[in-house]
């Protein structure tokens, strides 16, 4: 039996499903990359450590990873709120707070990175 039905809605369910997985993979790749870079440091001194993040490749990789973390965390936290917080206004307030907090995290990470 085939179902001929008009697909409606914003389609964000499918998009978020895909982004959750893609951002997860980006975070794993960054983690492996960072571990390799750390293992290649001769010694963990301030100079070597700060020097690592002074390199443009590391600034960009870390920025991309931070955006992936924020988007990944948003979808996860939103799912938790949708499952456990029933009053709509409270859920909305919590979701709005999570968005503000995550944007703050990203901006904070950028200011740290681009000052090194």
């Amino acid at each position, binding site marked *: 039996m085939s179902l001929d039905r008009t697909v409606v809605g914003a389609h964000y369910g499918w998009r978020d499903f895909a982004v959750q997985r893609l951002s997860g993979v980006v975070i*794993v790749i960054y983690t492996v990359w960072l571990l390799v870079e750390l293992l290649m440091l001769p010694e963990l001194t*301030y100079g070597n*450590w*700060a020097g690592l993040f002074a390199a443009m490749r590391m600034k960009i990789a870390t920025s991309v990873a931070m955006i992936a973390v924020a988007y990944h965390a948003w979808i*996860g936290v939103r799912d*938790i709120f949708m499952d456990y917080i029933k009053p709509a206004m409270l859920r909305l307030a919590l979701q709005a707070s999570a968005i503000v907090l995550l944007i703050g995290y990203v901006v904070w990470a950028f200011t*740290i990175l681009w000052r*090194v």
Partner: protein
Amino acid sequence: MSDSAAKPRPEFRNIHITQILRYRLPGPGIVSILHRISGALMFLVGIPFILYLFQQSVTSELSFERYSAVVSHWFAKLVLLALAWAFLHHLFAGIRYLLLDMHIGWDLPAARKSAAIVLFASLVLTVLAGLKIFGVF
């Protein structure tokens, strides 16, 4: 026929928080709820704490000293240990979910086995991370 006088079996539908301890959650269920808990922990504590440490560690020679002082405190080490577990569990459980998305390990025995592997592997690596954090090696 079954004995009608048999002890009534516990029935769980939408379980209430007070029933949680009586409810025997199978391995994949434990992995699932810990995936949420570890994710929430990293969202609330992990990201800000790691960003704070990152800021202290890269900003200047002086702030690097402050970073070293902070991470040598026992409580900070305890927090880092909890975050190490959260990250490792979330990572392994996440890889398991990616494999399940591709219908790898799809049947129940395989799903139970992979859940046990996730729980065990993340705990073993957390112990190793703990030995590193507390300076055993």
